[in-house]
């Protein structure tokens, strides 16, 4: 069953067509990757899915419901968690607070709840959120950092914290924008295992990544974007052999030589 479906999605910024007529399906329970050269429109596609941009034409369906025109926060609450290419943590807050903010849509007490902080109902919810946060921290092995300022964490841990924060949303679909960027080989291996663990909990993962070893090692399916158009889709094996993909990455001569 498709959890996410893009139908003929196009977005134009003035004269630039950043994403052109893309059809894409992400199956539930899989790890799907989106690759492509720099500027191919991968992050733009993520921003379209999460409602930060609205498509010029075409439609996006999440869990078989159209999300066109739905504001970002509602899409998030409906079950799409995401990380950002350039990390966007709340750097002046602790690691735990970051994750509790991620769990925002799993609570419901608002201003009234703040003023009735010590009533059992509010305390119960706060405890529930805290438990959820604890689980997410364990998932990314950051429990020992819970009370440090997130801005003081080393780069690799900040990336992991961003994933944990997205998990706190209890998403059905997790979008990871270049999760392995700037990581060393060991961290990448750990990240791979982590993404597998996340999938094992029933969360569908859709990721953008440049590291081919990472993508080939982890994905069930891969889609390739080039100049805003989808040029290929298939299993890692199929993508590795696809002449169009080789051409996009290495140029025409290389594709001929390979064939």
């Amino acid at each position, binding site marked *: 069953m498709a959890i996410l479906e893009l139908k003929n999605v196009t977005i134009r910024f003035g004269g630039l067509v950043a994403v052109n007529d893309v059809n894409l399906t992400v199956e539930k329970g899989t790890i799907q990757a989106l690759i492509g050269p720099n500027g191919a429109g991968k992050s733009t596609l993520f921003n379209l899915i999460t409602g*930060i941009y609205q498509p010029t034409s075409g439609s996006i369906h999440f869990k078989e419901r159209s999300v066109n025109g739905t504001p970002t926060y509602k899409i998030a609450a409906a079950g799409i968690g995401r990380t950002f290419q350039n990390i*966007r*943590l*709340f750097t002046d*807050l602790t690691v735990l607070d970051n994750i*509790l903010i991620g769990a*925002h849509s799993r609570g419901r007490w*608002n201003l009234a709840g703040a003023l009735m902080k010590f009533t059992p109902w509010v305390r119960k919810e706060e405890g529930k959120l805290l*438990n959820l946060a604890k689980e997410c921290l364990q998932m990314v092995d950051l429990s020992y950092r*819970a009370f440090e300022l997130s801005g003081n964490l080393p780069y690799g841990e900040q990336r992991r914290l961003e994933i944990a924060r997205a998990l706190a949303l209890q998403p059905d679909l997790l979008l990871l924008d270049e999760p392995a960027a700037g990581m060393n080989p060991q961290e990448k291996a750990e990240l791979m295992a982590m993404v597998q663990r996340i999938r094992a909990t029933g969360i569908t993962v859709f990721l953008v990544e440049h590291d081919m070893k990472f993508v080939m090692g982890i994905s069930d399916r891969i889609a390739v974007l080039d100049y805003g158009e989808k040029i290929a889709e298939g299993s890692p094996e199929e993508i590795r052999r696809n002449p169009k993909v080789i051409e996009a990455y290495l140029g025409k001569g290389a594709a001929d030589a390979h064939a």
Partner: protein
Amino acid sequence: MGDFLQLLTGSINPYYLQIIVNIGIGIILALGLNVITGLTGQLSLGHAAFMSIGAFTSALLTIKLGMPFFANLALTGFITAGVAALIGLPILRLTGDYLAICTLGFAEIVKVVFLNLEITNKALGLTVPSAITAVPMPIVVWLVVVVSIICVTFIHSSRFGRALMAVRGDEIAAEAMGINVTLYKVQSFAIGAFLAGVGGGLYAHFMGYINPSDFGFLKSVDILSMIVLGGLGSITGSVIGASILSAAPEFLRFMASYRMLVYGGLLVCMMIFRPNGLMGGLNFTSLVLRTLGRKPHMKTVMDQKTAKTSES
């Protein structure tokens, strides 16, 4: 009890009593602005406008309707918050400098409107009859101060407060976490305005006379200086900042016309030597723990909390 308190406040030199009340009102205003600017990160240069709306609303409720004082204060707070929400909806889509300029413009509009309305007695201002309360006015003011401090403290450490801090940190990330950024900004604006309105109501009834020019740009900057001096986002900082800046002009009176010079100099030194404010974003409890050389045992706190909920 009431008689005793009457006696108590009566025995204090009225001049000092006025300073004490001014400090209290200053704290209420600073706490309100600290929710908007310190906690939610929205720079407002028009906080005095909300004080003004509160002062005139409250005065008119007393003069025209003879409303009992506490009901009057509460209603004033809600009316001011309502106005803030209406204003906030369009202008809170702006960020940073643009928002600041908008709030500045709004404050000027409020001033000009009150200066020209028949009902607010135009430029002559309003004379407000003193409020009939069971306890003397200074005690009322400080009761409101205590309640405000408790409420704002609760807001800081709640799901609601965390959402406000998320908005301050990164609006795009906050949206991606399922937080309706505009709604939270408007709510934060309304909370700040509520406190400003109540502060204005207290001011009107304590001073007995209000004039639209009392709530101009300088007043807004005064309130902003209080929270910057104390440290943005810190409740203890707001209290200290408001106390110092409300009292300083009076205590510097012996310097006659040089006092504003010294006052300005203090602020400049402050920004050079402690740019994060006196409290530097810390609250009282964490400061005490830090000076005692103890890290708060948050880990055990967290373990206990989670253990408790899993039992239930």
